[in-house]
């Protein structure tokens, strides 16, 4: 399940990049993230909690920056395995930044979320809707953060 889009905002590219890469920015955008801690400068670990109605899923979550091409391109891989073995959750996020006219930057993102295991096979209807929502929320959080910090 892939979510793509882009937005533009008024900010210098280097600042945008620095903020994006600042410890914790990306992980803090993951909906339901709790206690995310840096393992090294590219890896964070913690717990992500998700709720779909009566189902509460607790994931041991690791996020790693796998591709870095400052100040334009970053790829982050998130891997979560459900506590209790109900399945795993992967999220691949790519953010590309480029400068456009008028001191603005365009932030293009794509986020591909997939579920493996029991979580995935249970109720396609519920999970698909929910996963789409999580992906959308992640991007929304990112955009909000960037805009509130930099786009003033």
């Amino acid at each position, binding site marked *: 399940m892939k979510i793509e889009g882009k937005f533009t905002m008024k900010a210098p590219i280097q600042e945008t990049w620095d903020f994006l890469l600042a410890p914790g920015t990306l992980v803090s955008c993951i909906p339901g993230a709790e206690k995310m801690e840096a393992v090294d400068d590219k890896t964070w670990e913690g717990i992500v909690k998700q*709720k*779909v*109605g*009566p*189902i*509460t*899923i607790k994931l041991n979550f690791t996020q790693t920056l796998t591709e870095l091409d400052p100040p334009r391109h970053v790829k982050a891989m998130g891997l979560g395995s459900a506590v*209790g*073995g*109900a399945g795993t959750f992967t999220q691949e996020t790519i953010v590309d930044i480029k400068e456009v006219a008028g001191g603005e930057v365009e932030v293009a993102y794509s986020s591909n979320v997939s579920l493996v295991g*029991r*979580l995935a096979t*249970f109720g*396609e*209807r*519920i999970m*698909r*809707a*929910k996963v*789409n*929502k999580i992906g959308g929320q992640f991007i929304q959080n990112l955009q909000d953060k960037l805009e509130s910090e930099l786009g003033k």
Partner: protein
Amino acid sequence: MINDFEHFTPKTLKEALALLAKYGDDCKVICGGQSLLILMRQGLVSPKYIVDIKGISELSYIKDDKDGVKIGATTTHRAVEKSAVIKKKYPVLAEMETRLASVQTRNWGTIGGNVCHGDPAGDPVPVLIALNATLTVAGARGTRSIPVENFSLDYFEVDLKDGELLAEITIPPPPPRTGAVYTKFNIIESDLATVSVAASVTLGAGDGVCQDVRIALGAVAPTAIRAKKAEKVLKGKKITDALLKEAGEVAATETEPISDIYASEEYRLELVKALVPRMTKEALARAKKA
């Protein structure tokens, strides 16, 4: 595999609320369990405590009084389906029940459980919205009322706070010259809805003008929704085919359907456009006869 849990069988609403207050997040309420047990078997829900309200007889009733008909939350689907009062006053509700899952599920499952499950494709909620029903929620600090259309919040999430229980569904007496209908579109007859539509039309005395209309849609948004803009198209007017078509188009703009293995987003929109006029027209025909 279902995890072990502790099982409580309160005999009164009060006892049940006390248990809920005590165990909070760690407990789940079961009644018919037709939805919850499936989740528990998958290991997706594993509560430590289960408060089983199936045995609370004070919550199982269908009463007809001046405020309308009151249905206790633990009333089974089958009891609703067979109730003479409901067949007479709200035939649409009984008709909806006959198409809800299977006889076995209706015999054990309850209307309250269904409403609280918050499935956007569930059958009762759109009908209850069209009938302008109100829910009574009981909590440790007393009860509160909430219109059914505001009760569902998100996929499988409803407006029940910790320690609260759905106690009763109240359906107001239908105004004269009112007709209501429900249909669900699906591939297999008894299946969950791909799209569902409930409509209720009230005609003004003598003039054939649509005095009130309520249109509710299921499975096209995170919750069952009321298509208020579409209602506006029709309200206060003499309903024509052209207006109905417009209402269908408008209703489609009020939805946010998803694509899944049963139908694409676009197809769901087309179904709304086709079914809203069709069902509203049927409701109108019923209103004329009423």
